[in-house]
């Protein structure tokens, strides 16, 4: 993962890392890692939480996680099954048997042994109706979970699911939650709130002070060995305001915090910290819709859409608007992904070409400079989500650049929940948005005809075939080839313009060791067990 140290200087001067409070230099004092976290989370159940689950992952582990290179690595699994290691077998009837060997000697925080039964229990919960797990449908291909022994799980899949490695990101304890209904597990406050939360992770739950912080303490019985973790305690303070987070970091009150790209320069000058630009598995994009009659009239022709994309100066957005912190995207798949296609066509900024293509499509400039075809002006509405300053700024640049080629874009800004409702209804014409992809990318749901997250109204059977094919391959080469073709086909259809890969600047004290920022949904705390604290 791209983790670029923008600034890391000596400690001890004004504005440095938490001064004398971490216990880092005093062997008798506990080493306390202080994190300025962006929000208060909803629940501690990592599978039903609707927030990113960094805090939960300090206590709870899954079969796998992702590292700073966007690779899946085993955690509670000994190894990730593949056809090569013969842990995946495609049966004659088309079903797939997948075997996960599990780590031995792992204990839950209450001393109970972690076994294969816990994995099967987790599968039964996730796939049950109403489980509220965001990717539940991906588990539905599993029809049976067997436990040949305490440390082996065997799944039977109805068919192959290419991105199976990203499932089971957290395992639930059967001895705590077993015997409860799905609804009871979702609403079980002692587990959600921490009192009954047991995991297998490097830290144990200690305290949740409502509105203030969650505190976790070292798990002395951690299965990786008595030397892990090297930190005694982590305090996750909830500081939702980005300016306050910046000030608290500058005041030396925290070791870690995420800031805005526009704050990077200011923070880079502060001694005792490094600012790391962690490139996310998330891409900003400009979507067009075909859902309304007006949108179909404007965006129905591929050449017209392509012309609009040629009018947008993405390098300028990346270099000037985002101050060079991000890189231009040509594909939804991040460059660090092995499935990223370097050869995916890039849309060049060429306003002259855009003008010519629009002219050829019959859209002629009217008296006010806006193009007209059969009495219809080329004007559409962009849906903005309030509070997302970066997206709105990008939308404003797009608005100005489209105006230069005679296309008028107006704004309708809605608050987050209202925006989501409108997006789901399909009653919109264009928008700037961002998706967070798992490390193993499956883009079918986003672009397939009637895909659960395809709200654009676009449908391309050829692309569908490629994407569905890619989901059904276990073999890397064949899967990559299908995804490569899908990325080219997607770019050629000019239905969505990738703009840039999002970046989250992470401020890390120079006292912290072994930090390796990761931009996947597992986040940068994936290897907390390895982190150290000391000057």
């Amino acid at each position: 993962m791209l983790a670029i140290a923008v600034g890391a200087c000596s400690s001890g001067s004004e504005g440095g890392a938490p001064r004398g409070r971490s216990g880092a230099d005093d062997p008798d004092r506990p080493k306390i890692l202080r994190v300025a976290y962006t929000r208060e989370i909803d629940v501690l159940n990592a599978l039903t939480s609707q927030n990113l689950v960094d805090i939960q992952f300090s206590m709870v582990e899954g079969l796998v996680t992702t590292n700073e290179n966007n690779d899946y690595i085993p955690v509670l699994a000994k190894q990730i099954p593949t056809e090569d290691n013969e842990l995946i077998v495609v049966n004659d009837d088309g079903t797939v048997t997948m075997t996960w060997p599990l780590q031995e000697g792992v204990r839950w925080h209450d001393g109970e042994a972690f076994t294969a039964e816990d994995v099967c229990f987790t599968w039964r919960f996730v796939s049950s109706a109403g489980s509220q797990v965001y990717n539940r449908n991906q588990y539905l291909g599993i029809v049976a979970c067997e436990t040949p022994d305490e440390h082996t799980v065997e799944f039977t899949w109805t068919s192959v699911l290419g991105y199976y490695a990203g499932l089971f990101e957290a395992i639930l304890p059967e001895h705590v939650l077993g015997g409860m209904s799905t609804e009871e597990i979702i609403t079980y406050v002692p587990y959600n709130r921490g009192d009954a939360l047991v995991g297998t992770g490097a830290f144990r739950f200690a305290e949740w002070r409502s509105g203030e912080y969650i505190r976790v303490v070292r798990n002395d019985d951690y299965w990786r060995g008595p030397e892990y973790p090297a930190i005694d305690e982590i305090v996750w303070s909830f500081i939702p305001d980005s300016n306050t987070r910046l000030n608290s970091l500058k005041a030396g009150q925290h070791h870690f915090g995420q800031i805005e790209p526009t704050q990077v320069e200011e923070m880079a000058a502060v001694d005792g910290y490094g600012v790391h630009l962690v490139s996310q598995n998330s891409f900003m994009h400009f979507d067009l819709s075909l859902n309304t009659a007006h949108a179909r009239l404007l965006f129905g022709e591929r050449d017209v859409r392509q012309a609009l994309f040629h009018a947008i100066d993405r390098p300028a957005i990346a270099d000037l608007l985002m101050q060079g912190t991000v890189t231009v995207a040509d594909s939804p798949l991040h460059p660090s992904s092995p499935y990223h296609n370097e050869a995916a066509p890039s849309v060049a900024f060429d306003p002259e070409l855009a003008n010519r293509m629009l002219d050829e499509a019959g859209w002629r400039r009217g008296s006010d400079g806006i193009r007209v075809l059969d009495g219809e002006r080329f004007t559409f509405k962009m849906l903005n989500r309030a509070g997302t300053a970066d997206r709105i700024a990008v939308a404003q640049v797009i608005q100005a650049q489209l105006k230069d080629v005679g296309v008028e874009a107006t704004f309708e800004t809605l608050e987050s929940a209202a925006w989501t409702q409108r997006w789901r209804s399909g009653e919109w014409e264009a928008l700037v948005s961002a998706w967070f992809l798992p490390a193993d990318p499956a883009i079918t749901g986003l672009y397939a005809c009637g895909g659960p997250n395809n709200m654009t109204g676009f449908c391309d059977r050829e692309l569908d075939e490629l994407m569905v094919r890619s989901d059904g391959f276990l073999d890397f080469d064949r899967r990559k080839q299908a995804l490569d073709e899908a990325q080219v086909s997607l770019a050629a259809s000019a239905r969505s313009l990738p703009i840039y890969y999002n970046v989250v600047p992470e401020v890390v004290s120079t006292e912290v060791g072994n930090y390796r920022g990761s931009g996947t949904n597992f986040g940068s705390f994936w290897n907390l067990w390895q982190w150290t604290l000391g000057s």
Partner: protein
Amino acid sequence: MIPLVFGITIVLFAVIQAAPGGPEGALLETGRFIDPEVIEAYRERLGVDQPVPIQYVRWIGGAMRGDLGISFSTTRPVSEMIIERLPATLELMGASFLLAALLAFALGTLSAVKQYSWFDHLGTGFSFVGIAMPVFWFALILQLVFGVWLQWLPVAGTQTVGATSVTDHVLHLVLPTVVLSLRYVAGWSRYLRSSLLVALRTDYVRTARAKGLSEVAVVCVHAARNALIPVVSVMALNLAGLFSGAVITETIFAWPGIGRMFVQAMFARDYPLLMGILLLGSVMVVFFNLVADIAYGILDPRIRYE
């Protein structure tokens, strides 16, 4: 009072539900792909797939039994969440109210007594700045000066983790209190100045002076007592304003009060939690009006209620 609060709940419930979007928006906030069946199951579990009147009847039925429902996002009882957060808000409100009242009384009285002096002009200038200055900007400036540059005061939170001393807590309280009270110091001191100027020109004050009373007794006992009646009315109404003003202050200073919880509940469309907080706010408005009415009677014995 009870019918009034009952009416307010109907309006609040209708307004909250009228806002576009629902709690399922939270499921998509992280930008992860989501299974639409999960969204529908979520709505069904929360009961938001039911018509609004049915949802209201369920809610008010529970509320009348003291059950404000279960928070959509945290799955915890709303009343428990409110009780947990209320002390922090009341503490911040109380400290801000006291600070604002003390400073406003001093500033307003001195400005009136020394009308058109340099102090009066300075006070007027301060008031305009105090009222006009955006709260979030003032808060960030204070954080920068006292937290980052001087390092005298903590930037956020209520207590250093692990510290139990009262001093540590008081230090955390200083910045949010100053920020929250600023606007009220400015406003109330202006009200008091105007009111006191009128009082100081009345016959009974002239009589008090003619009797040979000291200037302090004339101003503080005779004039101020009458001058405070309109000010108290404003202060009582502003107490509810302090409650809502705490939303911004609590968010910026990461103060774990009701205001911050309200912001989170609003974005998550956590209807039961929103209703619980708004109900509390409504009760407070009604209650503080009652307090103002009682205060009139104390300040002016001629005012009596039957």
